[in-house]
């Protein structure tokens, strides 16, 4: 084990290098990140034996990954922003073919206006494509999640692709401290890859991706996919606990901070959870009963556990770094509020949209969100409409 000063991109690329999968396909031009660039360098330097397929688009990157995974290879790719959007069609194919591809995603805005900065529009837009989604707060979690993703995806009760997110630039481009494992420890943790029905097993020929017929079994297969998601709920925890024994950093679906006696609580995902933690600590020193829940697993969504953790809180403020236009709020908000519907007593849930297109979020913005929640807890009337943090108002 060693401690490195490394960018988020560098940490994730290192994790992938230590796993050394059979195939990586990647589109090598912007909006691609340094993860793919670094990995190409590892291949060119002979550090890894991975077959690197440079493709002509992100749609092709995911298509090539699907082909390689169906052939029987442990397969990865990486993407961000518009590249993620261009993969869209194939993301569903990867999940429905039950191929355990893993993919780090550097979360960034989707155009337009053209904007390259951090928000969660890309990955949150892909929340229903059948991939498991794990969000990291910092470079350390990006590294740790990238390694665990292989075990989760490849578990025989799951066999679903996994994407692991870290925030664009704020984490991906910034240098931070990361505890890394030795190569052999990582390889030992992920283990040997076991392909299921691989195309290259010539003794057992298979047909992958067939037409399901006019009165086929599409419906049954979709239910099977959702059951795999339910299984993933358990497997993510098992893998996170085992990883904790190895590293001293156990992982679960979410973490809580000062939540036990909290009257109001924030829910955040990604790097802003770190800022929120600092704000909560400061407010606690002033005697304000504030807590925080940081979401790691967004798909499958750990609704029952989240509801249990937030039981007893009077007002929950959910921070969304992307919006769902015309919906009742951002993606995290609708998920949390739905999870709390059956809670008795049911907390009031407010939505705070922030950080779109890389708009800065300051501690004072997060304090403002807490204040709004406290006003609601004190019985004041607070709108259920979206609250915007650091927006230029007319």
């Amino acid at each position, binding site marked *: 084990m060693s401690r490195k000063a490394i960018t988020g991109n560098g940490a994730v690329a290192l994790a992938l290098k230590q796993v050394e999968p059979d195939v990586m396909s990647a589109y090598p031009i912007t909006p691609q990140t340094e993860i793919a660039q670094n990995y190409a360098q590892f291949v060119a330097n002979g550090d890894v034996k991975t077959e690197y397929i440079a493709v002509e688009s992100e749609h092709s990157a995911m298509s090539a990954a699907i082909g390689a995974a169906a052939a029987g290879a442990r397969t990865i790719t990486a993407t961000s922003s518009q590249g993620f959007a261009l993969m869209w069609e194939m993301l569903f194919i990867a999940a429905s073919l039950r191929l355990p591809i893993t993919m780090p995603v550097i979360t960034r805005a989707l155009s337009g206006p053209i904007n390259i900065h951090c928000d969660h529009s890309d990955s949150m837009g892909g929340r229903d494509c059948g991939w498991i989604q794990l969000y990291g707060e910092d470079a350390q979690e990006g590294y740790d999640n990238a390694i665990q993703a292989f075990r989760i995806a490849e578990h025989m009760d799951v066999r679903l692709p996994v994407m692991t997110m870290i925030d664009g630039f704020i984490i991906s481009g910034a240098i931070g401290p990361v505890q890394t494992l030795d190569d052999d420890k990582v390889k030992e943790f992920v283990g040997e890859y076991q392909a299921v029905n691989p195309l290259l097993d010539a003794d057992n020929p298979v*047909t992958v991706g*067939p037409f399901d017929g006019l009165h086929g079994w599409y419906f049954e297969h979709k239910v099977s996919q959702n059951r795999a998601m339910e299984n993933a709920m358990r497997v993510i925890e098992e893998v996170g606990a085992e990883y904790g024994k190895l590293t001293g950093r156990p992982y679960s679906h979410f973490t809580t901070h000062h939540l036990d006696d909290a009257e109001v609580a924030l829910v955040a995902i990604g790097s802003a959870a770190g800022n929120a933690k600092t704000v909560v600590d400061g407010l606690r020193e002033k005697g304000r009963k504030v807590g925080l829940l940081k979401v790691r697993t967004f798909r499958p969504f750990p609704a029952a556990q989240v509801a249990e953790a937030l039981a007893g809180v009077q007002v929950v403020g959910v921070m969304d770094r992307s919006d769902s236009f015309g919906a009742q709020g951002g993606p995290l908000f609708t998920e949390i509020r739905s999870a709390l519907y059956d809670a008795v007593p049911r907390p009031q849930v407010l939505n705070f949209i922030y950080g779109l297109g890389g708009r800065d979020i300051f501690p004072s913005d997060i304090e403002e969100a807490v204040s709004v929640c406290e006003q609601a807890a004190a019985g004041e009337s607070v709108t259920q409409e979206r609250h915007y943090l650091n927006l230029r108002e007319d």
Partner: protein
Amino acid sequence: MKKWQIDDIDTWGPSRHELGATIPRSGTADDYNTGGWRVERPVRDREKCNDCMICFFACPDSSVVVEDGKMAEIDLEHCKGCGLCAAVCPRDAIEMTDELEARRKEEE
């Protein structure tokens, strides 16, 4: 070789199928008769054809049947009538003809 008993597949629930709808045998497209989609039927002139096999490589449905290194016939069970074979034939040995007309003649 995997065995795949599907006699009662109509009763199968979500957990009985192979992962990802994979079928544990190959060549399943053979079971699927796509010839019915055809509106134009390729007809080959045996006199003009010199078995160069360019149509064999061009055919997207593997419907050019080869026997003993020669072009034997076009598999009308699977040919969708796209006309690529006729377009690439260097000797104009394949003509696309009206499918309905051909069927009418067959019925007579």
